[in-house]
């Protein structure tokens, strides 16, 4: 595989990972915390209405998880495609 194709593959894999992570980012904040907040509020999570909880705490926790997952996965991708920085 020539280096041009290899780089293409790497970039595509990168874009796919970013898209997936952004989807989660969007869903937990704009989705659960804003657009779907009323129906979700019907459910109680240990004394906190669920939609409200996502808006105030849950989304932040998910953001942290998404970033760490992305960093770990992306660094692995670097190694797999042999573009890891030395």
């Amino acid at each position, binding site marked *: 595989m020539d280096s041009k194709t290899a780089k293409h593959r790497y970039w595509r894999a990168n874009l796919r990972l970013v898209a997936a992570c952004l989807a989660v980012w969007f869903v937990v904040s704009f989705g659960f915390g804003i657009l779907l907040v009323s129906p979700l509020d019907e459910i109680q999570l240990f004394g906190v*209405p669920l939609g409200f909880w996502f808006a105030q705490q849950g989304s932040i926790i998910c953001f942290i998880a998404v970033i760490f997952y992305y960093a770990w996965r992306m660094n692995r991708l670097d190694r797999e495609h042999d573009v890891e920085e030395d």
Partner: protein
Amino acid sequence: MDLKLLTYLVVGTSFAVYIGIAIWSRARDTGDFYVAGKHVHPVANGMATAADWMSAASFISMAGLIAFLGYDGSVYLMGWTGGYVLLALLLAPYLRKFGKFTVPEFVGERYDSRVARIVAVICLIFISFTYVAGQMRGVGIVFSRFLEVPIGAGLAIGMGIVFIYAVLGGMKGVTYTQIAQYCVLIFAYTVPAVFIALQITGMPIPQIAFGSVVLGDSLPLLEKLDQVVTELGFPAYTSGTKSMIDVFCITAALMIGTAGLPHVIVRFFTVPKVRDARYSAGWALLFIGILYLTAPAVGSMARLNLTETIQVGPVGAPDGNVSYEDRPDWFRTWEATGLLSFEDHNGDGRIQYYNDRNPGFAQQAGRFGWRGNELRVDPDILVLANPEIAGLPQWVIALIAAGGIAAALSTAAGLLLVISAAISHDLLKGVIAPQISERAELMAGRISAAAAIVIAGALGYYPPAFVAQVVAFAFGLAAASLFPSILLGIFYKRMNKQGAIAGMLAGLVFTYGYIEYFKGLFLQWVGAPWGQDIASEWLLGISPEGIGTLGMLLNFTVAITVSRFTPPPPLRVQALVDEIRYPRVTAGEASSD
């Protein structure tokens, strides 16, 4: 020990620490001064970023805003954290690979245009100075409130401390002091929260106490709070009053604006490698999250405390409200500052605190003999007064003062440094006098940092009356002008200088125009008839705070359209894009498709 003396001691000790760090981390060359020699460990960088990010607003104002807005306060919680996901995924690693010193430098090189670089510098200076005015104001207020030092002197002391570690150490000095300031501010924020959570729910971890049952009651905190406030005609805490589209747009504008703020972006230039930049964003959000996950608890508990201190018995009962005579000590102290005030509208000597703008409640209130809300509370005092309201020991109160100052100074330093780099590196070295030596540039950096500090101090002393609105404008501007240009620069090779400049200007003019029309930032000064923020006239129901989102979309549209009709960027720029996309590829090897 006297509270004032104790506060002096605690604050003074923190200052000694900052100065010690400044001396230890003197900058020796421009690499040190602008990006701390790219030696900062990702975890340390995360902590510094967190302190840089969490300003006086996060520390002092946010919990107070949440306390009075309830669900609507979520725009700040999500808005000021979600942007880090965008930074980590879309910007940080690529800008780190770019490897130079400033954001305008990236814009200038990517778009092969001095004009673009200068536009970026203008946006940066505006955003950063407005932000820094707010911080300086915060420093002055904490000094005057807790240390009883006049605002001017307080400002001078704050400026002096920042001067020492920013001018001496540059980014290196600023980074390591920010780490110390993070430790101070997180401790100062968490300790009172733990005490209060324990008092109200018996659960010492505030983030969890948020959902716990109130001691001596059978209801969870939020349910009790909903009940208590709705009985007084206020909207329920867990539902909001803003329209969904507005909540959506404000949250988006804040998130995207965060990712476009130069003083935050530059933090990712200081780590050794691309993979460190990715992790560093995670660490930053983790450290930020510790405070942000506590804030909803602090806000809701403060609201409950405040309301129950005034409404001591059943609503409407003759002795259901505390009498003015019997008001607690903290009430008296804060009354003296003018941030808390009482007016006995019905002359019964008792304090009625309720929502007199709720027509549905007005009839009931009338029957109780109430004649209008009698208590006015500035949301800013909630975090500062919370320890007193809860009757916490004095050292906790002194700690809050040190924490508030740490938060303000850490952010101010980050902003001032980015302003100074824009002047010495982007304007001077980049455009006006490219031949100046490294030593001269370093000296220019120090001088512009010093000048920026003085101007910031002046802005703190004579703040533009509209500081809060101007900060909202800063986010909108970052979202509409800088973020799209940087994003397109990395992900869309076809984007050229004409598109980028057109897009930046479109976003800038639209966002500025909209905010000026509704908020009257500057032109009202000269007698413009606008500045009436009438909600029914908002475009699509979006407030000026949220308009940056539309500005961003406009930027994208204009930029992409214009670039299609103009020549593609030169091959060497396309090679640059390739270089930043791959952690290991040299410019010679890069493809040019």
